[in-house]
C-alpha cells in the first residue's frame, strides 16, 4: 500500500489540480512530515526541540493512521506517545535547564556510527518493502465507517470479525491472555515505581524528629485565608486587562 500510494502520489503531482488523488496527497504530506521531523530529532541539539520534533513526527504518524481509517489506533497514538513524550519533555527540561546541558553535541564518531546503523536499517526496510509482490489494498480507496468495537471485543476474548480469506476455519481466540499479561506487567511496574519513589523513612528517632520539624507549617485554613484576600485577585483585574 505504501509503494502504491507513493506511485499514485508521484503521478498525481504532474496532473492538473482536479485530478489529484487527495488521499495520496495527504499521505505524502504526513509521510514527509513524519520523516523530516524524525531526522530533525536526531540532528537537533536542544532537548526540548528534540521533543518537539518527536511530537510532530508522532503526530504525523497519527495522521497517517487517521488517513488509513484506523481512528482508534490514531487516537491511541496521540494519547500514549504524545503524552509519553510530554513526560519525557518535562524530565528533559528539569534535568537540562542548567547551563552545561542546554545543548547536547554529538561526537563526529557517534554521528558516523549512527548514520551507518540508520542507513543499513533503512536499506533492509526498503528492500523488504519493495520485495512484496502485491500489497493488499483497501476495498474502495478509503475504509468506510470503521468502528472500535471489534478491537474491544477481541481484547475481551471474543472475536466478532470474519477471518481473512484463506485462513483455516475454526474457533479463533481473542487477545484476552496477552491483554491480561500486559495489565499485570504494568501493575507490577506501577507498584515498583511507587516503592522506589516513596519517601524513605529512617528508623532512628532523631531522623523522625528532623522530618517532623521539616513539615510545611502552613495549614489549609491559613492558606485559604490568604487566598481569599480580595486585593490579590481584584487588583490584578484592574491592572492586567481582562484578567
Amino acid at each position, binding site marked *: 500500500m505504501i509503494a502504491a500510494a507513493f506511485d499514485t502520489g508521484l503521478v498525481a503531482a504532474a496532473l492538473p*489540480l*482536479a485530478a*489529484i488523488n487527495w488521499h495520496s496527497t495527504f499521505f505524502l504530506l504526513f509521510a514527509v512530515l513524519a520523516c523530516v521531523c524524525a531526522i530533525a530529532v536526531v540532528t537537533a541539539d*536542544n532537548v*526540548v*526541540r528534540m521533543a*518537539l520534533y518527536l*511530537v510532530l513526527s508522532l503526530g504525523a504518524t497519527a495522521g497517517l493512521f487517521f488517513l488509513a*481509517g484506523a*481512528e*482508534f489506533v*490514531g*487516537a*491511541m497514538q*496521540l*494519547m500514549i506517545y*504524545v*503524552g509519553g513524550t*510530554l*513526560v519525557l*519533555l*518535562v524530565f528533559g*527540561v*528539569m534535568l537540562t*535547564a542548567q547551563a552545561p546541558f542546554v545543548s547536547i553535541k554529538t561526537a563526529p564518531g557517534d554521528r558516523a556510527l549512527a548514520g551507518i546503523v540508520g542507513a543499513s536499517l533503512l536499506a533492509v526496510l526498503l528492500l523488504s518493502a519493495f520485495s512484496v509482490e502485491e500489497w493488499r489494498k*483497501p*476495498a474502495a480507496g478509503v*475504509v*468506510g*465507517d*470503521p*468502528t*472500535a*468495537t*471489534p478491537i*474491544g*471485543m477481541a481484547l475481551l476474548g*471474543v472475536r*466478532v*470479525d*470474519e477471518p*481473512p480469506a484463506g485462513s483455516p476455519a475454526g474457533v479463533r481466540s481473542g487477545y484476552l491472555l496477552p491483554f491480561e499479561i500486559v495489565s499485570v506487567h504494568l501493575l507490577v511496574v506501577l507498584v515498583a515505581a511507587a516503592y522506589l519513589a516513596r519517601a524513605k523513612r529512617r528508623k532512628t528517632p532523631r531522623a523522625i524528629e528532623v522530618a517532623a520539624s521539616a513539615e*510545611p507549617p*502552613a495549614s*489549609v485554613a491559613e*492558606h*485559604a485565608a*490568604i*487566598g*481569599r484576600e*480580595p486585593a*490579590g*485577585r*481584584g487588583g*490584578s*483585574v484592574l491592572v*492586567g*486587562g*481582562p*484578567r
Partner: protein
Amino acid sequence: MAEFLINTVGLSAWLAWTVTAVVAAVLVLNVIAGGALVFIWAERKIAGRIQDRLGPTRTGGRFGWLQSLADGIKLLAKEDLMPEGADGMLFRLAPYVSFCASFCAFIALPFAFDFIGCRLNVGVFFVVAVLGLEVFGVILAGYASASKWSLFGAMREAAQVVSYEVPLGMCVVVPVMLAGSMDMVTIAEKQAGWFTNWYLFHDPFTFVIFWVYVTCAVASVNRAPFDLAEAESELVAGFHTEYSGLRWSYFFMAEYGSMFLVSAMAAVLFMGGWNGPIPLATLLGLSEGTGDTANYFVRLLGMFNLLGKATLGVLVMMWVRWTLPRLRIDQVMTTCLKYCTPIAAAMFAGAMLWQLFLPGGLAPGLDRPAGEIREGWLEGPGGRAATAPAAEQKKVAQVNR
C-alpha cells in the same frame, strides 16, 4: 453538504469537499473566537459582580458589551515582545500549538445530530487525547521564555494535567460504557427524551461521577481553583509572563476554547447533548424525517440547546473561579490522587455493577442492551436472534482487512 454541492450546484468532487472542509473549519473557528469574545466579557462582568463591583460599563453602552472587542484591538496594537534569552522558534510556536490543540478537539464535537465537523467512531477518546496536547504548548512557552516564573508555571501545569488525565479518563469511560460506544453522536442519541434519560440521572454512581468529572475538567483546563500554571499572585502570570499582544491572546483563546469544550463534553456525556430537559421538538410534533426543513429546524434547536448547556458550564466555572481560593500544588495533587481517582474508580465499578444487575434501571421498560447484542453479533437474552445484517458483517470484515 459535499453531496449537495456535487449533485445540485454541480461542482467537481474535489472542490466540493474542499469547500465543505473550509466551511466546517471556519464555523468551528468562529465558535472559539466568538465564544472567547463573549466569555471574556461575561467573565469580567461576573468577576465584578462577585467582588461587589460593576465590571466594564462604558465601552459599548451601559453593560460594556464591546469591552472584549476593544481589548482585542488593544492587543493587536501591542508590541510583540520576546525576551533576549528566549528560544525564538519555540517561543513563537508555542501559542499556536496550544490553540491548534484546542481547535482540533472541536472537530469531533457534535453540536447537533448532523452538525459535526467529523463524526469519529472514537470521538470521546479523540477529544480527550487532543485536549491533552494543549499542555504541550504551555510547557514549550514556559521553557522558551527563559524566565523562572514561566518555567515554574509550565512545570506545575505539566504535573497537574498529566495527573488529572487519569481520573478524567475514568469519568469519561462511564458514559461510554453505558452507551456502548465512543461515538459522541451515539452517546447523545441514547439520552434522547426527557431529562430523566440523561446519564447524569442514570444511576447514583453516574450522578457522583459527574461531579468528579467537573472537578477534573476544571483542573485539566487550568481554571481556578486549579490555575497554578498562572497563579498571578505568586508567579507574575505563570507560563505567559513573557507574552504580549496577539500571541498572548492565542493562549487566552485556547483557554476559553478548552473551557467551552469540556463543558460541551459534559453536556454530551452526562446531560443529553442536544436533547433538552424537555423534548421540545417532539412536543412540537417535529421529528427526524418529517422533512428537510423540519429536520434542519430540529437540529438548529438542538444546537442552541447544546450551546446553552455548554455556556452554562462555562459560567459555572467562572463562578467557581471567583469564589474559591487557589489550591496549593500539594493540595491539587491530593485532590487528584487521594480523592478524584479512588472515587472515580469506585463509581466506575459501581456503574458497571449497576449495568450488570439492573440494566433497565429501577423503572421497568428502559431496556439498554449491551454492545455486542445491540450491534447484532451475539444472541440477546430475550431469545432475540442475532440479527446481524449482511452489511454490518461486511463492514466489520472490511475494517479488519
